[in-house]
């Protein structure tokens, strides 16, 4: 080996090294300029400025009403509950639409560290963007269907009501009639079959569930999509609860794991916007902010506007069975 090294005369070796160094440098500069070919211009650029105001429709294009969704309501005795999913805020971004009977969903300050039922609706527990029908005692809540761990979507991430313990969660120790940590909660869980993350929908926006036999690999709650109704009880989605988390696939790395402002500013990249609706924008909407319902024009919601007027988008609610059967 030594011999072969000595075979090359010294100046030649130096020239070679110089040449090699220069080539590497040139390659690096060239590579940098290549970046614009590899990274599309519209990457990391939001497809719209603010969250869209979107009316929820069934697959035939008819707006759905609160009472339509209430037919699907799950209670503590429910065995199977169809999955209702709509895309929001972008296409390809599934969101669960859940109706739970017999509970007024409120969001505690932090996820409770013990217990499994609903949090008592204290006077100041916020209900931001959750629809509550007091006559039937039904709450309607929308939670992102993109797992906060590594982004699995329905049907891998799936709501299983109180009487339906999925096989995969039995593997980690849940039991139908378990006690303490092994108890499958009263209203069940949104359970991710990819790696076993658990989310408790009756905790509203703070739904990360770590009180079971095994901890969730996810470390944030499922983002809560805000819902409002109009005078004919049609349902609208208008944003994401900013005290909650960012949709997983929208995280910009690094430093992409904060709440609040980032929910508002960085969420709408990497996809295609939901479709515009040909209906006219409703004049007043009713929604929960804090503990009380508010009625106001849609422009106060901070949703996407074009030249000062709110644009109405639409999104389709699909299910795995029943009249809304379809794919998201």
């Amino acid at each position, binding site marked *: 080996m030594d011999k072969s090294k000595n075979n090359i005369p010294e100046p030649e070796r130096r020239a070679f090294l110089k040449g090699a160094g220069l080539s590497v440098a040139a390659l690096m500069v060239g590579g940098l300029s290549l970046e614009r070919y*590899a990274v599309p211009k519209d*990457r990391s650029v939001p497809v719209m400025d603010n969250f869209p105001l979107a009316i929820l429709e069934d697959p035939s294009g008819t707006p759905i009403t609160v009472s339509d969704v209430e037919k699907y309501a799950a209670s503590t005795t429910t065995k199977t509950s169809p999955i209702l999913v709509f895309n929001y805020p972008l296409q390809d971004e599934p969101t669960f639409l859940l109706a739970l009977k017999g509970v007024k969903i409120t969001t505690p300050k932090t996820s409770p560290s013990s217990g499994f039922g609903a949090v008592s609706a204290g006077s100041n527990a916020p209900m931001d963007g959750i629809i509550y029908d007091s006559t039937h005692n039904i709450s309607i809540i929308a939670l992102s269907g993109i797992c906060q761990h590594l*982004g699995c979507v329905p*049907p891998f991430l799936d709501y299983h009501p109180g009487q339906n313990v999925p096989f*995969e969660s039995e*593997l980690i120790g849940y039991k139908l009639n378990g006690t303490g940590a092994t108890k499958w909660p009263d209203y069940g869980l949104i359970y991710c079959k990819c790696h076993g993350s658990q989310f408790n929908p009756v905790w509203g926006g703070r739904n990360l569930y770590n009180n079971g036999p095994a901890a969730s*690999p996810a470390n944030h709650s499922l983002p809560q999509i805000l819902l409002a109704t109009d005078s004919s009880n049609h349902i609208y989605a208008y944003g994401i609860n900013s005290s909650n988390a960012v949709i997983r696939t929208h995280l910009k790395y690094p430093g992409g794991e904060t709440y609040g402002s980032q929910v508002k500013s960085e969420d709408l990249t*990497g996809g295609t916007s939901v479709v515009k609706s040909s209906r006219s924008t409703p004049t007043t909407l009713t929604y929960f902010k804090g503990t009380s319902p508010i009625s106001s024009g849609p422009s106060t919601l901070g949703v996407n506007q074009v030249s000062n007027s709110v644009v109405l988008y639409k999104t389709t609610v699909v299910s*795995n069975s029943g009249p809304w059967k379809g*794919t998201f």
Partner: protein
Amino acid sequence: MEKTEYEHNEYDLTKLIKEEKDLPEGSYKIGFKSVTTRGYRIDEWTGAWVATALIYQIVSGIILFYYYSQVNPYASTLYMIDNVPFGHIILTSHLYMAYAMIALVYFHMMRQWFVGSYKGKWRWLQWTLGVILFLLTILTAILGYMLANTAIAMAALHIGILFMQRSVIGRILPGALINWVEAILVGNYTTTATFSHLLAFHVAIFTVLMLGIFAVHFILFERSGLASEKAEKGKMIPWFPTNLLYATFSAIILVGVIIILSAVFPQKLTLAYGSLEYGTFPVPDWYITPLYKLMDVAGYGLGTGGVPLVIGVVIFIFLIPFIDKYHKKGALERPWITAFGIYFVMGIAVMTIWGYSQPGLTQTRLLTEYMWWTMTLVTFLPVYAMRFAKKDGEEIAN
């Protein structure tokens, strides 16, 4: 220093283009070597099968490529199955040959590992290129599996992307660079952009890389000859036609078996992305599960301990020709390497089965540790015991 049975590693690559002299059949620069009858033993042909699989994948892949549309990935895949003549068999055989190729790559690699034919002459280079080919094979397979836009494929894609961001890869690479890497993989992440990018990697970039590296890998093989024999005048069987015929026959048999299997067990396309279905779900393909599981059962959870572990294992395999300092060739003469090889084979098998039956489940650290240490014991102990027994036997015989 003990006398070594290996030829010395040759690091001066310029010698590759020099003419080889004193070969039994004359001298040449690049050509096909003749071998002795020993060269026709079946274990010398593991590489030929992998090469056959590669060629078959390219041919069947070209046919599939005519019908695939990255705008309509799932629908166009269904179209291939339902409307293209023999489409179902072609698509299934492309899948099964991919399975075969991966299995054969493992087989080929482990054979060289146990025989110790990664040292001497250019063989160190042949091995390291082989490891790159191994990685490319698995990556290409994973990309192909994503191309159909099934629910499980998209789960894999989403997990992969988030994994890159959240694991050490994303944490070490500066923000702009990880953005670049991601953009190269999925563009702006819309459906069409994603699938055009995946398609480009699957059918062009990785495949061409593989073919190119394979060519060098193969030329190096022809240059170094079989590791297990010395060329001898008068005993060599000429490459043409014997070797060629042998290669052709073994290729035909492999392709035939795969086509028959695909006709008998045609593959069903799993749930499309976006469909909602309760009940049972497809699990990831078997060659993905060990990788996935390795990241998982490292005991530190997905993303933190797993990625460095996988990288570490790959680097170790890559560097084996330089790590292995033993002087003799037999498997028992290199006990540590052999034991590690068995450990590797067992680990892959265990994790494949485990990952296949419980893809997402993280086990407790105690169980994980228990499993790994048991495996360590059952691999190292017998190898050293056998080596001891062999030495003992030799001493008695003398």
